[in-house]
């Protein structure tokens, strides 16, 4: 009973813990907040309290706020279902004080299934241990002892909390209710020379192509640097726009365009306007994708396709393995498998010439590095950002 298929609220509520966890695993859901931790693993052992982290903290971000605004009904149904499946004593939506008005609809519906808690407007609340401290009466211990005598940093499950971010939970809704696997990422595009936008983008899309759609003259923008992240926490995506490329990752929360030679934190005071048009989907607008079968914390999935195969959008292309953390991988674009190398499945959608698609997939980063993708996790994208 773990097929990805449409389910009614009652059918979802009828799922066992094991079935719901397996659906999350097959659907390929990992923490969208930045950590990339496999979501299914957080739910294997039921805990009393689910905290939904809606405190996106990087200056200028709008993604999570728009996801909540546009998907109220989905979250209400999901909270009801999750409470039944996992027997949560409490589900809490944690929101910055400054966003009270924005989340007023949720406050109105907070009738016992979940509650809304307001936390201080500091940056740090995006970090899950700090969030637990402010949204509950509990503190995650700094360090805990392992059975083998070693010590590790404390985590929310040590005090009975599961922390998931907004987008991760929307992906759980999509899997449990709609039977939709994870194939897209929501993120904010902002900074120098671009209007602020929030896009839903196929995973593995070219960063250059997305920025071209956002209105940048990519070929003549060597004076710009693109960060995957915000002013404070980020990884380098493209040092000089127009030279080399990067891929949209499962934990990309922003493409932040800054002047080449400056540092992200110099933009910490940046303020952006919420894009009037809301979230814009680029599904079907992208010419090619490079989808990683693993990377970061994930053991690569077993590929189900070969070079030259035709695949449809949302077709399974990688099956999770039993070793370590592993999740299902799905085509974020319909088209032809143009290559399968180094754990990356390249799919060409045919919207641009094949040569150009291949050129984009070439390792042309300055210094000869591979284009950045999950196959080669960024240095800063570690567990410390695990608020997903």
């Amino acid at each position, binding site marked *: 009973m773990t097929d990805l298929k449409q389910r009614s609220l009652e059918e979802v509520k009828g799922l066992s813990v094991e079935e719901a966890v397996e659906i999350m695993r097959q659907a390929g859901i990992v923490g969208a907040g930045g950590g990339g931790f496999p979501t299914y693993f957080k739910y294997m052992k039921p805990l009393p309290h689910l905290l939904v982290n809606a405190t996106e903290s990087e200056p200028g971000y709008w993604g999570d706020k728009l996801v909540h605004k546009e998907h109220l009904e989905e979250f209400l149904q999901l909270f009801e279902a999750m409470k039944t499946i996992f027997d949560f004593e409490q589900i809490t939506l944690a929101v910055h004080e400054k966003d009270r008005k924005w989340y007023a609809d949720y406050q109105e519906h907070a009738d016992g299934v979940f509650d809304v808690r307001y936390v201080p407007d*500091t940056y740090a609340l995006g970090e899950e241990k700090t969030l637990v401290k402010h949204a509950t009466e509990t503190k995650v211990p700094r360090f805990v002892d392992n059975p083998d005598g070693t010590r590790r940093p404390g985590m929310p499950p040590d005090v009975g909390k599961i922390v998931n971010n907004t987008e991760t939970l929307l992906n759980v809704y999509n899997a449990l209710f709609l039977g939709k696997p994870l194939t897209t990422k929501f993120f904010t595009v902002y900074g120098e020379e671009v209007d602020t936008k929030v896009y839903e983008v196929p995973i593995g899309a070219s960063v250059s192509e997305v920025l071209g759609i956002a209105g940048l003259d990519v070929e003549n923008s060597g004076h710009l640097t693109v960060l995957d992240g915000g002013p404070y926490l980020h990884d380098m995506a493209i040092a000089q726009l127009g030279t080399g490329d990067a891929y949209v990752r499962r934990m990309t929360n922003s493409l932040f365009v800054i002047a080449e030679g400056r540092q992200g934190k110099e933009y910490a005071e940046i303020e952006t306007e919420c894009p009037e048009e809301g979230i814009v989907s680029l599904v079907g607008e992208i010419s090619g994708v490079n989808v990683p079968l693993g990377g970061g914390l994930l053991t690569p999935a077993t590929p189900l396709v070969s070079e030259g195969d035709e695949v449809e959008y949302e077709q399974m292309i990688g099956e999770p393995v039993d070793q370590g953390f592993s999740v299902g991988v799905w085509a974020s674009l319909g088209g032809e498998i143009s290559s399968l190398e180094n754990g990356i499945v390249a799919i060409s959608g045919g919207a641009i010439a094949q040569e150009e698609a291949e050129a984009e997939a070439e390792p042309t980063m300055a210094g000869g590095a591979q284009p950045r993708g999950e196959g080669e996790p960024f240095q800063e994208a570690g567990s410390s950002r695990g608020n997903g």
Partner: protein
Amino acid sequence: MAYVITEACIGTKNTACVTACPVDCIYDAGDHFIINPAECIDCSMCMPECPVEAIYPGDEVPEYLQEYATKAAEFDYSGIAPGVEIN
């Protein structure tokens, strides 16, 4: 409420925290590293990196280590650059 580096850093001065800090607010105070509370954004990324567990959230510093919080608050950060001095 900034993070505070305490006694265990003395004699250790492992630089993992300096590398982890996204805002470069960790300075070399001689015997130990020190976090400038005016610059710390409370992100907590330094804390799990410390191999000797010297770093505490500001409101969780044990009483016997409070002098390190006081020192960080009163320290003169002018004239020194954050990070590790390269000789």
